[in-house]
């Protein structure tokens, strides 16, 4: 658009085949949505049973009680108003409503050329894949010709620093680290100083996984954020919350608490391949309306890609 000169949209280095993989991984063969719809509607008429059963299917897909009720409520109104007769119509209405939940979450990560270093702070609960996501994002940015630096801010978990350093080696990207047990805010500060000195494009700061209910750990995270702002008061430019797609309703609590503490600006949803249906994306989208920057559908570096609601819906529906 207007600012095309100064920004690099992540989606522009979309890796070929990502959408295909997305389709394959979240459906495993047939699209559950179209499959279920066919099964729900053996006849050529939509009936009340079909709508009730659809509700169950949506709940089973972790779409969440609220989002499910919203969608089913709308379909019910259409049905009661006599506007849903044919299965095709139900399928179309469902797609439209589900799609409208996701649409506000489009918003790829854009790295303006005039901000240097662009600081990304990664946060999330334990075991969602923060470090792995950093490794993959770094690889993509590097391939894009950006210079990247990593900060090993997880100074708590045993060998977390080594894990990040290994990613650094694989991508030949420098990693700023201090011994396990040191202050993560100080690691962040050092790293930002180093990134400025070396004129690095992007600095990604790892943090230890923490449960959002642990007040003192959330305070520690606030401090990391605050201290990053000391050298550059616009930093961090992106606070990326990593959410595990196999998480159920608790994903919402996590996002709300992290948002309150450090102001989340984007989401990365990982391990979508581990869910049968990827429905949690809807639950998150409906409640939070935060841009989803990345989704992960596998272990390979190329299995992390930008989120695009159209592509996601079409993958769910198994469009060819």
């Amino acid at each position, binding site marked *: 658009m207007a600012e095309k000169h100064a920004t690099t949209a992540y989606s522009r280095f979309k890796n070929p085949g990502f959408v295909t993989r997305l389709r394959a991984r979240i459906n495993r063969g047939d699209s559950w949505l179209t499959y279920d719809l066919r099964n729900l509607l053996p006849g050529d008429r939509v009936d009340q049973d079909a709508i009730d059963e659809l509700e169950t299917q949506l709940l089973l897909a972790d779409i969440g009680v609220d989002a499910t009720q919203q969608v089913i409520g709308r379909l019910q109104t259409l049905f009661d108003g006599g506007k849903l007769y044919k299965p095709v119509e139900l399928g179309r209405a469902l797609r439209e409503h589900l799609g409208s939940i996701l649409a506000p979450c489009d918003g790829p990560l854009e790295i303006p050329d005039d901000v240097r270093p662009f600081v990304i702070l990664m946060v999330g609960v*334990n075991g969602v894949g923060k470090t792995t996501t950093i490794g993959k994002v770094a690889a993509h940015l590097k391939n894009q010709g950006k210079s990247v630096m990593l900060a090993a801010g997880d100074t708590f978990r045993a060998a977390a620093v080594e894990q990040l350093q290994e990613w650094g080696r694989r991508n030949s990207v420098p990693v700023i680290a201090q011994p396990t047990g040191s202050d993560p805010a100080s690691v962040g500060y050092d790293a930002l100083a180093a990134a400025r000195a070396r004129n690095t494009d992007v600095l990604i700061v790892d943090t230890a996984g923490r449960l959002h209910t642990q007040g003192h750990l959330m305070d520690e995270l606030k401090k990391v954020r605050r201290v990053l702002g000391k050298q550059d008061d616009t930093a961090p430019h992106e606070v990326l919350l990593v959410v595990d797609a196999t998480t159920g309703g608790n994903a919402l609590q996590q996002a709300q608490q992290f948002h309150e503490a450090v102001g989340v600006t984007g989401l990365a949803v990982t391990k979508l391949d581990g869910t049968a249906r990827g429905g949690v994306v809807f639950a998150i989208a409906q409640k939070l309306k935060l841009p989803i920057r990345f989704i992960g559908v596998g272990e390979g570096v190329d299995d992390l890609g930008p989120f695009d609601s159209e592509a996601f819906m079409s993958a769910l529906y198994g469009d060819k």
Partner: protein
Amino acid sequence: MFENLSDRLGDSLHKLRGRGRITEDNVRETLREVRLALLEADVALPVVKQFVEDIRERAVGAEVLRSLTPGQALIKIVQEELTRTLGEENSELNLRAKPPAVVLMAGLQGAGKTTSVGKLARHLRERQKKKVMVVSCDTYRPAAIDQLKRVAEQVQVDFFPSSADDKPVAIAKAALAQARKSFHDVLIVDTAGRLAIDEPMMQEISALHGQLEPAETLFVVDAMTGQDAARTAAAFGEALPLTGVVVTKVDGDARGGAALSVRQVTGKPIKFLGTGEKLEALEPFHPERIASRILGMGDVLTLVEEAERKVDKDKAARLARKIKKGKGFDLNDLADQMRQMQEMGGMAALLDKMPGGAQLPKGAAGMADETQITRTIAIVNSMTPHERQFPDLIKSSRKRRIATGSGTQVQDVNRLLKQHLQMQKMMKKFSKGGMKKLMRGMQGMGGMPPGGGLPPGFGR
């Protein structure tokens, strides 16, 4: 962890409590809410259906409708069914095999396998006096082996070094041989996280299982998992003969539905709960206790056990003797008690287990968290030994110094001194008349101040 589920269930069940008559309609309405509460708590749908059906059958039958207090009767049924779904009783690890008994850990990525290995190793070493060796067969995730090595150092058990270039099965074989040679009682085998649908990886863990013939095969699952918990558990259960489940990250505010689903789907007992980041945060699982926690009825048994284990009995006895001799309860003693509170996981962990504790407003538990205790200890630490023994000395300039030293305000110091004075008075009363009572209180509740129940700083 279970607060939200308790809230929901509590609300709908409380409406029934105390009613003299309930009709089938009442029951149906309540069960609808129970169903929704369980779904929101991420309990898998098939499990919810079964659960609600079981309750309905019993509730509509004679048990409830003819009872004099039908509300109570229904609550009792829900609790019984919850307990039944969660498994009947606590089951310890079964390590009665020819040593070394092998424990194999399996689960998704990020479930908390490696941390659980560490916690389990510590548990076995400290509580069951076993000689434990751990080994990592995770040759995939960068630095996974390193992580286990560090954890093993922290919990002081032996670590079998492996390399990411080796085959997992070869590592397992070598570790087993070594454990046998060095007379270890238990060998805990960590594995890479894997998806149940990842065929080659599932074959690999089957091969590991065949090689090791483990006494225990534990499925590790994150308490925050959604509807997928049931599917994943079922798939792992098919690929591996599981013997038990470890539920991790239950210290978050997840509603714990995954625990219910996994138990029901695999039919295997939940053996442990991971309740925190520290390597001592592992609790044996007691279904009846968790069921009453879900219903907001507290878990006093676990609390008492913890107190017995963690409270320094010598210190408590010394304090009792001191007070008996007529010497005052000084600030050193107060700080000691605070430290013991901290050992037991702080106020929040205690409240969690008290009857009604789950119903306290969210902020209350947060306010009473470690910061209060830490602050009190900091204030005492900023005093001279002399001041700690004779708090009456502390006047304005000393107060200012202490406040500066501990990073607090003079008001905080005043508050602490006032609380201490109150406690001292109470102690005196006890030392005159109720000595026996005091001693008994000391043994039962360990370091908790007698009489008051709650230590200073929380009773405000």
